[in-house]
């Protein structure tokens, strides 16, 4: 067998799987979005009709979709930003020459990343219990009145963001640590010889040195946070209270798999995809321009 034949043979299984179980479904999803595929079509596929932009028209008129869109943007905007800031802060702390037991801290901070989201959500749901939860008990030490975390429309999303921070910040922290390690220490030595303050060093050495890492982290965090699903599914009974935690993926799931409005749900998925592409587009452009 020639090297060329072997090459094709070795990539064939993976390629076939990716085409059939990823690429094809993505393409079919675009088609599904312009049909009225529903529970009747599930029984008899010949009942499917082409409806053009009808699903998108319905979506624009659907207050639930807008709720989900706003909630998702809230989660991405506030949660994503706080998460990246916390990760950066933790990475800077661990990379500091003063820091000891670095390996231990890194391991503990990273551990929640590998934990099962559903199980974590179950634990936090109990943690947020207004009367018997650990969090309100802790806050009571500071004289804070009990908060009805998951039952109060104003607090439910912050509660989910807090959970996401707890679970995810270790991921970007590790990436930031790797990015920090690529900045040559001699730059800092030279800067402090020149009398640059810590803040100046951070602003003129650390931040520019982290630029590619920061762009990468922004892209992956945006993509990840847009896919909010398991947390509200488990913690707020699927988007409550009064839809304060309904996310786009949850809206898609309910429409598609609870009511079997698969055409409409596919249209929601397309909008989500377009949104992700749109938001990450400037970052990807920047990445391509600046990467060597």
């Amino acid at each position, binding site marked *: 067998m020639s090297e060329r034949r072997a090459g094709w043979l070795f990539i064939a299984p993976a390629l076939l799987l990716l085409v059939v179980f990823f690429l094809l479904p993505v393409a079919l999803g675009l088609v599904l979005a312009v049909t009225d595929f529903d529970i009747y079509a599930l029984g008899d596929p010949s009942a499917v009709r082409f409806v053009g932009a009808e699903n998108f028209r319905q979506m624009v008129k659907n207050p639930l979709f807008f709720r989900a869109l706003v909630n998702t943007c809230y989660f991405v905007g506030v949660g994503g930003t706080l998460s990246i800031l916390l990760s950066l802060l933790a990475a800077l*702390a661990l990379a500091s020459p*003063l820091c000891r037991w670095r390996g231990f801290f890194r391991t503990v901070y990273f551990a929640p990343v590998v934990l099962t989201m559903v199980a974590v959500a179950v634990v936090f749901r109990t943690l947020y219990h207004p009367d018997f939860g650990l969090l309100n008990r802790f806050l009571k030490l500071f004289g804070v009145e009990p908060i009805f975390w998951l039952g109060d429309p104003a607090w439910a999303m912050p509660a989910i963001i807090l959970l996401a921070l707890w679970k995810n910040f270790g991921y970007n922290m590790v990436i930031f640590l790797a990015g920090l390690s690529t900045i040559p220490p001699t730059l800092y030595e030279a800067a402090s010889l020149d009398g640059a303050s810590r803040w100046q060093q951070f602003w003129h050495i650390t931040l520019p040195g982290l630029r590619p890492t920061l762009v990468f982290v922004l892209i992956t965090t945006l993509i990840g946070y847009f896919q909010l699903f398991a947390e509200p599914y488990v913690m707020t009974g699927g988007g409550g209270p009064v839809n304060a935690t309904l996310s786009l993926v949850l809206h898609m*799931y309910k429409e598609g798999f609870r009511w079997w409005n698969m055409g409409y749900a596919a249209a929601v998925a397309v909008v*989500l995809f377009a949104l992700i592409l749109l938001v990450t587009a400037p970052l990807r452009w920047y990445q391509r321009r600046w990467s060597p």
Partner: protein
Amino acid sequence: MNRWVRPLLLHAALVAGVVAILAPLLWMVGVSLMPTGASQVEPPPLLPKQPTLEQYRQLFLRLNLARALGNSLLVSLGATLCAVVCNGLAGYAFACLRFRGRDRLFAALLLLLLIPGQVAILPLFLLLRTLGLTNTLVGVALPSFASVFGIFMVRQYALSIPQELLEAARVDGASEGRIALQVVFPLLRPVLVTLAAFTFVGTWNDFLWPLVVLSDERWYTLPVALATLAGEHTHDAELMMAGAVMTMAPVLLVFAFLQRHYIRGLTLGGVKE
């Protein structure tokens, strides 16, 4: 003075972080060892007065979570094995074997990384339904058999394999299959372990896809079973905590043993490209 204060403040903050990470987990274990209702009193206790395995017994005997545990193990181990073989072979081929269109194909594959999985989920469900694979464990595992990220990870690592080594094996008359299995795979061991850990943890934790594809309780994986249980037993905190411990324990164990491999895999994909 300043020489003491700065490290002290830094480590105080770091230790506070450790407490914030560990408190919910330790509390989860504590409550899971309490008898039913014991955590729901004023003031809520932090530790069980008399630890009991009552909740775990109930999960296994009455609620059949042992079966879900078995399903999860089958799905995750099966997906891990297939992912290592498929992505391992493909990553090696993309890095070391020369064939026409290779690099263009690889660049096209990388574009797939930008597509979130949710876009594919509805048609994927319909596809598997046509194939008769909904409500089966194979259907749950199948989409994890190959991944662009896995191929990418193996390829990056395989780029360091010297061509001379492969040429020498060819001169000795070894077939391409034998070279892959006996020369290359042992060299790729570290990255394959990373890939295995990633795939195991990823499929174990996955929720949306198994939730969509499974409707029969008998095939539920642990996260789906736990979420269903959490929907039914809203006030049974002790039972839920035991279920959460059971669901997290295997991935935590994998992480404990393969921590270095796991974290290295992240940075492999992240910073260089």
